């Protein structure tokens, strides 16, 4: 059902519980409901109408409306629209009904909202800390507007522990992480293992929070944030920068010129190429097949070099500004890029054949780490993980942006739901990306690279953007604000959802399959852990790319340690 018809049906069903509704442009419905009905409306969307949960945004709206703000975003992928269900709990009673009974996928987002904004999801079944470090004092919520960006609270309790559950009968505890050769970034899975079988696990991550959202909301400006956004991730940074500017553009009703849209599409696909080549190589490395890992990296290198020639950097492209792009692809670069693609296609065909024909690789991945359609729905899995389970979702087709509506490509799916299927989906998507880039290069016409924006952007408007990252949907939510910066910017990276499926994927499997199961979602912890404050024990400063952030972290650490 399209957005408009759904709104009419919802009004009939819920009556005055729907306080206000806004069909904000194509494919967006903003729905303000009274607090008591939030759960009922969300349950209806998810269970009766089959909407896919995207994320929850908690915001401190007290300086503007005197209340808090809770928004649950849902996607109607087949109908190409996104619903935001919002409610505003009063300032003195920041509580809402938890929806994670009906929508288990909301489990993390609601915990995060409690940690950072202090809005309590009542009835949540596992309300432990998600984002804040264990020693962080209770009652301090860093994303509230009355907390300064550089505030470090007194009373940090070094000795306080997370409080893991008891292992099941007959199980030993195998700590997986925070440091493990196959985890490129810190995360901790506490595995309950019986013999070689994993019976359960608990997760404690978010050890490398960088306070990116807070920084953006308090000290950066609209056009500085894309540079910060692309540092959310070391692999799919361009995705975040595009998603952010698209969210701002959608909030301010700006339409970037066609050439900018094509260039964004090309760079996103170049990024997907290098990311998928990396992911397939890593999967081979995890099961001990280093030769294919090395070959993947050799083939990947020309892609990195051509990206460097276009943007000046192998990885952080600094491509986007609000309303356009910075870099152009001239005739010489265009020819070079086409040459790289041609060689890549031939070489990747050879790798795909080698992977496809390798019996040992199949033995290690077929039937391993299974995430079927049911799990995909429950935990709202995205990207290759969902597509490998036969769930054909892809933001490039479902919620088109950039130039994707003007090019022809296939949404690659498989039906095994296992690590092997995910590997196959990624390998095949490489060929689709090559096709997309070629079409873009053929269609792209000369024209301006960006809009001139002489005036201030409107204040208090919402912008949503879903971009298909190599690992799945990256969703950005922006509320525009005063002082040339957004009031609220919420990022939900694909690994945030996919990681929530891991406990179910590894349950009752061999311990040896843990690494490839986790590796097959191609996890990206820096994307997931992007939020507030410093974990003193993990020495998170190591992973920070910006010297300013490093200095900030060290200063904070000095203040906190006696």
């Amino acid at each position: 059902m399209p957005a408009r018809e759904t709104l009419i049906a919802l009004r009939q069903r819920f009556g005055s519980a729907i306080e206000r509704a806004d069909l904000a442009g194509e494919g967006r419905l903003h729905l303000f409901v009274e607090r008591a009905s939030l759960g009922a409306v969300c349950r209806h969307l998810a269970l009766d109408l089959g909407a896919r949960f995207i994320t929850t945004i908690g915001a401190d709206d007290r300086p503007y409306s005197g209340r808090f703000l809770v928004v649950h975003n849902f996607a109607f992928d087949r109908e190409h629209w996104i619903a935001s269900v919002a409610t505003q709990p009063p300032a003195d009673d920041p509580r809402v009904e938890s929806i994670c009974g009906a929508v288990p996928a909301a489990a993390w987002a609601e915990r995060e909202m409690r940690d950072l904004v202090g809005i309590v999801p009542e009835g949540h079944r596992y309300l432990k800390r998600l984002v804040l470090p264990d020693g962080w004092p209770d009652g301090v919520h860093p994303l509230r507007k009355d907390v300064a960006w550089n505030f470090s609270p007194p009373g940090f309790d070094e000795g306080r522990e997370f409080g893991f559950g008891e292992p099941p009968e007959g199980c030993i505890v195998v700590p997986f992480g925070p440091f493990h050769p196959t985890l490129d970034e810190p995360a901790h899975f506490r595995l309950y293992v019986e013999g070689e079988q994993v019976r359960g696990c608990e997760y404690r991550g978010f050890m490398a929070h960088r306070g990116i959202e807070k920084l953006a909301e308090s000290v950066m400006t609209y056009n500085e944030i894309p540079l910060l956004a692309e540092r959310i991730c070391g692999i799919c940074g361009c995705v975040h920068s595009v998603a952010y500017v698209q969210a701002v553009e959608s909030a301010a009703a700006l339409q970037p010129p066609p050439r900018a849209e094509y260039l964004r599409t090309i760079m996103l696909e170049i990024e997907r190429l290098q990311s998928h080549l990396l992911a397939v190589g890593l999967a081979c490395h995890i099961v001990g097949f280093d030769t294919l890992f090395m070959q993947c990296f050799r083939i990947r290198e020309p892609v990195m070099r051509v990206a460097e020639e276009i943007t000046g950097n192998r990885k952080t492209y600094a491509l986007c500004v609000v309303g356009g792009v910075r870099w152009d692809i001239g005739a010489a670069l265009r020819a070079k890029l086409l040459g790289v693609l041609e060689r890549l296609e031939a070489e990747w065909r050879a790798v795909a054949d080698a992977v496809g024909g390798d019996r040992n690789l199949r033995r290690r991945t077929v039937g391993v780490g299974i995430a079927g359609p049911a799990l995909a729905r429950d935990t709202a899995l995205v990207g290759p993980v969902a597509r490998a389970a036969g769930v054909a979702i892809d933001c490039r087709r479902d919620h088109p942006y950039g130039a994707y509506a003007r090019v022809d490509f296939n949404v690659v799916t498989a039906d095994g739901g296992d690590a092997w299927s995910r590997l196959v989906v990624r390998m095949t998507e490489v060929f689709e990306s090559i096709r997309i880039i070629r079409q873009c290069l053929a269609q792209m016409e000369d024209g301006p690279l960006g809009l001139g924006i002489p005036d201030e952007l409107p204040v208090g408007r919402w912008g949503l953007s879903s971009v298909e990252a190599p690992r799945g949907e990256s969703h950005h939510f922006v509320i525009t604000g005063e002082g040339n910066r957004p009031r609220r910017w919420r990022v939900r990276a694909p690994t945030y959802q996919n990681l929530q499926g891991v406990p179910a994927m590894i349950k009752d499997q061999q311990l040896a399959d843990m690494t490839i199961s986790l590796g097959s979602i191609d996890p990206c912890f820096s994307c997931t852990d992007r939020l507030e404050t410093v974990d003193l024990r993990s020495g998170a400063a190591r992973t920070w790319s910006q010297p300013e952030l490093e200095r900030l972290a060290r200063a904070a650490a000095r203040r906190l340690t006696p």
Partner: protein
Amino acid sequence: MTDGLLRAAVGVPLNAAAALLVAPLFQGAMRRLTAIVQSRRGPPIRQAYFDLLKLLGKEDIESGESGVMQRFAAYLAFACTLALTSLVPMGFPAPLGAGADAVALIYLLTLAGMCTLLAGLAAGSTYSLLGVSREMMAMVALEPLFVVALVVGALHRRSLRLDAVFGGSVYDVGGFPWSGLVMLAVMALSFQAFVQRAPFDIAEAETELMDGPLMEYSGPKLALFKYAQMVRLVVHAALFVAIFAPWGSGLGAPLGWLLFWAKVSLLVLLVALVAATHARYRIDQAIRYFAGLLAAAAVALALAACGH
């Protein structure tokens, strides 16, 4: 008697020295070959010597449950493999081949394997113990294969003495050597597992168990384990050649000697090639694989008992 003593006095240190010298060379060559397969340049062949020297020169850090046992395990592992070199022909007949029998050889080989278990148990961390349990499962399935290979030859020659068992005894029957050929196939297919290389590096499995039994080891102790593992590859290759491919060893000094080392080198490079082109097995998959080989070995044993 004096002749035997003299041969032992000269041969034992010679064999040990040869194995110690050649093992890192092989390691370096394997790395180089792996690098070529992987489109890399790879380290210089002599790098393996430098690595060992560097490890030996590092501080001896005590990390793990029982420092004494850990040191003991490292020394024992190294000593076992050195002792093994004197029971194996390396271009010349085994220095102690006349004095020892196949049972001593099997004992020493098993003891060398046990050292890994001991190392893991003494270290006592979760991942070490997981590695130990995998290693134990693999050993239980693997050791009988080697025993059968020796017993088949011993049955044919009606002697357990090493110099009788070596030299192609497995083929030494009146008619077509059925049992010998079956065992050749079995041992060839399980060779990677005996030398603990991919796809059978399950107990160490860097990306899963972070070196398993050896994860708590560093510096000189790690050097001893690594060195022992390199020497073990030479010993196993030499044993394989002695039992299954002895042709030409009788040719005498330079030619027979050269031929022997050529065969061993070929085998070692083959190991590197297989390791570079296979993904690691999971322990249950490996055990199933070994079970098939065990069944074939049992058939070979029955054939040998019947004189085929």
